[in-house]
């Protein structure tokens, strides 16, 4: 037993050195997944937030109590960000709209008797969800104002709530993070496979079979190093994802461990199968 332990330690350190002295392993198994994750996080992670928001510009042709009231209520709506924080001229607003700097222009009524609230949106994005949302919100606000004007209270209102099937809200960054971890595990496995095929090609496996070394111990120690490499990848990617990109590492640890072991073993198994 002690003899086996010693031989295992030697083989383990051999595989360890062979793996971590290989620059390609550093690049493909550590640097590459991290780089890929950072790129994906930057490209796709930024746009995602929990709620809808839109930039609008207000145009107030002539100040009056009605437009003042509406203006205040727009300011109170969180989803709207008002450009310049105050009404601007119609021309200015339209040029912003053309440049797509804002999502919509709202033209407030010119007088108390005017019943028109104008909504200008970019033609190219008229079918977008934000256009529909702005339209909906605006309609709702006008309806509220109408009801208030008539001193009537609405009898019915809809309360909408969405229930996520995940344990907590899942964002795109979370998907990237878990995806990258999966990629990294397969990458590490694949690399071990290449190493094994290389050993077969250059005759090292054959050479080892000429010695009394236990090929089982050789395989087990190889897998042990593979596990370490995968563990490093998971910790590193997890840390970068959580710390730098505020991703939720909302993973069932038990199933992660299961996937980690099965994934690493199956890729290592492929390697042995091809090399044998």
């Amino acid at each position, binding site marked *: 037993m002690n003899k086996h332990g*010693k*031989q295992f330690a*030697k*083989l383990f350190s*051999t595989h360890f*050195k*062979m793996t971590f*002295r*290989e620059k390609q392993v550093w690049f493909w198994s550590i640097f590459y997944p991290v780089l890929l994750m950072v790129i994906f996080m930057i490209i796709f992670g930024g746009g995602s937030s929990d709620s809808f928001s839109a930039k609008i510009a207000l145009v107030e042709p002539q100040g009056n109590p009605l437009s003042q009231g509406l203006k205040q209520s727009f300011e109170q709506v969180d989803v709207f960000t008002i450009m310049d924080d105050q009404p601007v001229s119609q021309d200015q607003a339209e040029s912003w709209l053309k440049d797509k700097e804002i999502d919509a222009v709202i033209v407030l009524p010119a007088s108390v008797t005017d019943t028109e609230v104008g909504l200008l949106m970019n033609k190219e994005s008229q079918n977008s969800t934000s256009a529909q949302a702005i339209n909906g919100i605006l309609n709702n606000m006008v309806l509220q104002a109408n009801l208030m004007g008539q001193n009537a209270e609405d009898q019915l209102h809809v309360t909408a709530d969405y229930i996520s099937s995940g344990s907590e809200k899942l964002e795109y960054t979370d998907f990237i993070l878990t995806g990258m971890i999966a990629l990294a595990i397969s990458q590490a496995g694949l690399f071990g496979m290449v190493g094994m095929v290389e050993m077969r090609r*250059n*005759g*090292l496996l*054959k*050479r080892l*079979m*000429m*010695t*009394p*070394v236990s090929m089982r111990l050789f395989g087990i120690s190889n897998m042990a190093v593979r596990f370490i490499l995968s563990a490093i990848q998971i910790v590193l990617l997890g840390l970068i994802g959580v710390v730098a990109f505020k991703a939720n590492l909302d993973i069932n640890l038990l199933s992660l461990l299961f996937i980690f072991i099965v994934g690493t073993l199956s890729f290592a198994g492929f390697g042995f199968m091809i090399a044998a």
Partner: protein
Amino acid sequence: MNSGQAMVLQVDRLRKSFGSVVAVDGISFDVAQGEVFTIIGPNGAGKTTTLEMIEGMQKPDDGTITILGDSWSSRARSIKMRIGVQPQSSALFDLLTVEENLDVFASFYERQRPVEEIMRLINLTDHRDKRVKTLSGGQKQRLAIGLAMVNDPEIIFLDEPTTGLDPQARRNIWDIVLKLKELGKTTILTTHYMEEAEKLSDRVCIVDQGKIIAIDTPKALIGRLTKEREIHLTFTGGAAQAAEAEGIARTTEAVTSVSRDGEHLIVCSTRPEQTLYRLFGYTTEQEVQVEQVSIREMSLEDVFIAFTGKEWRD
């Protein structure tokens, strides 16, 4: 041969074919304790196949191998513990250093020779911390031989240890083989360099097309050839003196043929000492100066040619 000594390896009527090609066709030989035994032959003669069957890497189609009293089928592990192998392709852990390589291989065996001592023997002590990747071809080959010695084996197999090396690197390998011999190790070696077999071996086994052509000491093999030797003489005085000496040589006993090229004379004789005595008697008498004298020794190459009737190709 070596009847007083114990036989450490007995190979009997070994046969192996790959498809329709017969690689080894009934090879039998015995190797005694402490011998350097060389299997020599051109490429594709069956040297490596024979060696790999003895090393347990290939199963013979027919025939038996007894190695250190054991057979591969019954005691493979015990045999592996007691032999050392350097295969033709130097298979090493190339991201590990020289010392680390020796260390790992040593851990496989119950018996070990100190790594320090092996590094000294293969002359790599200065390069112990160098990764294999950075070593030269000769250094790698020496390390491969070193790896075959980590368990202080009773028999060492070296498969073409000098192929592809420059003359200096080859000589270094020869030194190692001679040191192994001093240590009393039995060495079985394959090569396709005649010069090497002649220099290193106690006995040579010439193989061609899977069959043994001759098996004996290098000296005895050469001795089996005709006793005729070529004597080369170059005269300081030029072609005229050489022509005169040619006349003398033609009338000398035991001379089989004489040819002349300018001041250069070639005399073939079955009794070269007598022929030389006669020729030098003449030159001393006439005060003729001889610039160069040489007798070309017969080599294993000549043996190969004589036994197979084929040209030797390196």
